[in-house]
């Protein structure tokens, strides 16, 4: 990037073109863990976006004074403190939701996405742009989560945002829920499928293979 990208592209690039989950492959653990239903995916997205924006702002503000030798630990301490504070606020004012998210809120600390953005962007940009970038990435993460969450909830429970789309057999309908959709492996399958679909539509996202197979296998021997 030779020229400084415009604010608009900083905000919108991470939505699809530079999506943190499908292109940067960051923050996958939580993306797999909380996507069993759309509601938890949305709450988790909101919490992560909040942490991302706040940590980007804080780190960007002190970016010129972070000593290089301890920069990672300074960033992670700030992120971890923010996560604890947000977790406490959720437990105090949004108790129901915090019960449903259980441990995953505290695990935002270890979400590679947060550290990835502070390390690669906030450390070199003024607070306004850093927050914009963080917001864009948060929204990109949310988009990926909601897509996977929708598929999993729709086929795993026959509902979307707790609204029954397919009548399940238990309730006298025709739809047999796919329990696999509620298990972690289906998150992997769907995410893989999503990455594949996106890279077929946008071929520039595909990476060059790091190792080329030999043209003729007998050459190895």
């Amino acid at each position: 990037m030779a020229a400084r990208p415009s604010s608009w592209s900083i905000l919108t690039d991470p939505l699809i073109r530079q999506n943190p989950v499908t292109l940067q492959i960051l923050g996958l653990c939580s993306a797999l863990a909380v996507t069993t239903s759309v509601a938890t995916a949305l709450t988790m997205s909101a919490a992560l976006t909040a942490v991302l924006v706040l940590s980007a702002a804080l780190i960007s503000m002190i970016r010129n004074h972070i000593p290089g030798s301890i920069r990672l630990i300074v960033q992670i301490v700030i992120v971890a403190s923010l996560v604890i504070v947000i977790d406490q606020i959720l437990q105090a004012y949004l108790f129901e939701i915090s019960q449903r998210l259980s441990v995953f809120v505290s695990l935002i600390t270890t979400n590679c996405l947060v550290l990835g953005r502070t390390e690669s962007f906030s450390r070199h940009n003024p607070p306004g742009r850093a927050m914009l970038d963080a917001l864009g990435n948060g929204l990109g993460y949310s988009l990926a989560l909601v897509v996977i969450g929708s598929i999993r909830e729709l086929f795993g429970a026959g509902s979307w945002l707790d609204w029954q789309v397919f009548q399940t057999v238990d309730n006298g309908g025709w739809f047999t829920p796919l329990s696999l959709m509620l298990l972690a492996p289906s998150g992997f399958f769907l995410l893989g499928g999503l990455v594949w679909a996106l890279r077929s539509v946008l071929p520039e996202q595909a990476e060059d293979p790091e190792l080329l197979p030999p043209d003729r296998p007998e050459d190895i021997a």
Partner: protein
Amino acid sequence: MADLNPLTAWRRLLALPNESRTKTLVMAFLVSVICALAVSGATVILRPIQAANRAAEQQARLEALVAGIPGMSELLASAGGTLTTVVIDLKRGRAAEEVTPATLAAALQDSGNWTALTPAQDLAGLGQRPDFAQVYLLRGEGDALSLVLLPVSGAGYNGPIDAIVALRADMNTIAGLAITGQSETPGLGGRVEEPAWLAQFPGTQVADASGTVRFAVARGPAGSEYEVDGITGATRTSNAMTQIMRFWLGPDGYGPFLSAVRRGEF
């Protein structure tokens, strides 16, 4: 070092190169102090609200449990609509004389009021068991005990599971179960909270004629009057529920208390 004006000292510090050792140490110290203040501040300020939330939720679940048991609303109305709370001494199976619900929390701070469990006894993965527990009694007509509510807890797959078991007057028929706290995997083990699963508990038997606790969460559909259906994809959580129920309704849990109730001591 002669200049002691904090403002100039601060400016000098900021002007230091980022690689300097002094600046590294001071920055590390400042970041830790500020973060520590933010974290402890949030915890301390918000703790009363969180405690109130938890207490309200416990109360709501208790009420939902009682209300969900068939015929219980009428019983509650005739009993004056309230439950009596009793602290019992688990070892002796009697009401505790010196501990009241108000002083229970303080009593449990004292490690002398806990009993260590041997691995063979420790079905629920607790490590140690309090000697006192708060139970709720519901009396019907003629002051006869119609229902007891027993708080139970134990190790689940991701963390502790807390629940309240309601037993009918024979102390052998489950009248209902309410999960009051769990951190199992959402969508899998977390389904222990679902009303559809909990609805199987009413009517399930606890122990056979010889007094051995037979209750179990089955692998798959329930096969006997002592079993409820297992949860698909959550074998560890299902097993944990079996062990928690077996421990607390067995001789090392509420066993002595349940015998005392059967003897008519309550």
